[in-house]
């Protein structure tokens, strides 16, 4: 639905060479420097969840969209839409977690706006952000080549399941924690090590399935993923089994899919695994020579199937 909206209404109305790529951020050249710009709105429900809140999510989400373009996040704008009656202490705690995350990431929030709307005209708190970052390396889906390895920096599905559990009032919320995290630090690390990074994408809404299919489509190559190489925590796996959910379709907020030149793959994996939060990083698949833009999944049972674009949202308002 969102895809259709973007393609048919926005992309056709605003059409230009930057927008046409439909990436998470666009790279522009300004007086010799290359900058990436992105924007995002956050409407997650509940606004405070295990592992984070809407404020931390807003900073991380914007930072990660920039990081996926190999851009060092520098400046953010923040805009709040507040429903009348939102308790002050809730707003304060959200704002302080934004400030904390921005401070840690060394990005400055340099402009903002606030609107208060009457009760019932918004749901507690919506946040819009924009971000500008300095591009360290030019990456495009067109740089992906057959043989490239696909890496992920940790277990999948944590954010989406945490929100689902919190909203449905499932106990065990302690175990299901959002993976909400800024990723510029690990992207920078790989770039500093001169790892041959070809492309990156953060698998947020629609999870690994959606991100992999989008990349297959924009690069034209088919991808092969190996199900039992894709890390998942025991609690997320049990939760998905019980509810009949496909973990690969579930949103992440602190994960990145890296497309790495074959020769550098094991070095990239070592580099990632040396970071405490990425100990479960894994090579989860590779790019095939076939130009069919499909995603194949080698299943745990030893079979193979096509991993399709997730068709229906497991949950609305997860970010």
């Amino acid at each position, binding site marked *: *639905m969102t895809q259709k909206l973007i393609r048919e209404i926005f992309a056709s109305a605003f059409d230009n060479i930057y927008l046409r790529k439909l990436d998470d951020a666009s790279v522009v050249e300004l007086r010799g420097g290359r900058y990436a710009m992105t924007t995002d709105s956050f409407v997650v429900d509940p606004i405070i969840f295990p592992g984070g809140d809407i404020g931390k999510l807003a900073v991380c989400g914007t930072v990660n969209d920039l990081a996926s373009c190999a851009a060092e996040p520098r400046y953010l704008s923040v805009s709040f839409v507040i429903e009348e009656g939102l308790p002050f202490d809730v707003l304060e705690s959200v704002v302080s977690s934004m400030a904390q995350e921005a401070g840690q990431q060394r990005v400055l929030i340099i402009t903002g706006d606030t609107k208060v709307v009457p009760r019932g005209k918004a749901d507690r708190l919506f946040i819009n952000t924009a971000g500008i970052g300095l591009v360290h390396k030019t990456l495009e889906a067109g740089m992906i080549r057959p043989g490239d390895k696909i890496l992920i920096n940790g277990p999948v599905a944590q954010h989406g399941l945490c929100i689902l559990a919190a909203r449905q009032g499932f106990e065990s919320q302690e175990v299901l924690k959002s993976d909400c995290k800024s990723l510029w630090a690990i992207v920078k690390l790989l770039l500093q090590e001169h790892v041959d990074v070809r492309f990156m994408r953060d698998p947020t809404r629609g999870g690994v399935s959606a991100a992999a299919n989008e990349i297959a489509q924009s690069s034209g190559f088919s991808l092969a993923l190996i199900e*039992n190489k894709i890390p998942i925590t*025991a609690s997320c*796996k*049990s939760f998905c*089994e019980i509810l*009949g959910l*496909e973990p690969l379709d579930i949103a992440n907020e602190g994960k990145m899919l890296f497309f790495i030149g074959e020769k550098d793959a094991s070095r990239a994996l070592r580099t990632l695994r040396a970071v405490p939060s990425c100990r479960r990083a894994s090579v989860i698949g590779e790019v095939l020579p076939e130009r069919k833009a499909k995603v194949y*999944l*080698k*299943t*745990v*049972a*030893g*079979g*193979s*199937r*096509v*991993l*399709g674009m997730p*068709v*229906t949202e497991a949950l609305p308002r997860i970010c």
Partner: protein
Amino acid sequence: MKYVDDFRGAEACLAMARRINAAAGDRDYRIMEVCGTHTAAIRRFGIPGMLSARIRLISGPGCPVCVTSDAYLRNAFRMAAEKNVTIATYPDMLRVPAGGASLQDLRAGGADIRPVNSALEVPDIARGLKNRTVVFLAVGFETTAPATGILIQRAYREKIGNLRVYSAHKTIPPALMSLGKDKALCLDGFLLPGHVSAVIGVEGYRQVMRSLHLPAVITGFEPLDILSAIGTIVDAARHRQAILENGYSRVVRPGGNPKAKALIKEVFVSKDSLWRGLSVIPGSGLFLRKPYDSLDARRTFGLKEEDGYQAQDSGCRCAGVLTGRIEPVACRHFGKQCSPQKPLGPCMVSREGTCRAFFETL
């Protein structure tokens, strides 16, 4: 989770598949999985690709919303359109199209339609809406019928006067009979549904299987469960043996669940019922028995008999898909006009629907 992993190991699954392929020899096998959850698991784990092309797995009519007839839906739409009527039903039912509309469309137009995850949520809805009639659209097989049974008993005992039930519950054994006898299908055996079997037990199939004289194995939903059941069927079919085996004894007891069976018997009476794609199957429908039939929406609303409707042609080939005559890709609408976002037929709606299972994994 360790327990599940034991039934998923690639080594064990591939070894089993090799054994089946070797045993299959030089003849073809046509095995039907009746249950939609089996269809989904078979596709999800990539089982067809592990087996030789000689073994064809045919998807049967085992998804509750898929077999619910157009006529039933049109009756439901009629009730939903009435003033002071609230419809409660399982979420998948909202998206099933009939005659170009769905309950979801009616809801967008202002009708009061409540998705529920359990029949037992309905009494609270009814109590909260004293001056409206709440109709529960009861669909599903022996698995969901007991919950509807409890709902009916509770509404009857507690005198919840504004609650009605419109039952489309169906039973599996009569459908097996009809499919097994179908010459065009020419089946070599059945993978019997795990969940339904937990209710009716091995005994529930005894009579039908005796007269069909085909191999049939009750099985679970892990790849190794499914593969070993296929292996058993292939072995038996090769020797022209009729067997009825329980390959899911960690869940299914020989006699099933006596409580659930007694409840179904107490509340429902079996009559002929219209299935999408399979037409009327004798004795396959569960209808409200006396004295509970005072809660029957058919009576309250004077609904037209379902087999009295002329079938409408939407160009959708669900009927062929449901009876295993064609694979979804043979339908010209598959993946084009008909997708999970905008289903033209019911098989594309639910995760258990054959078309949806193919769409997601093809």
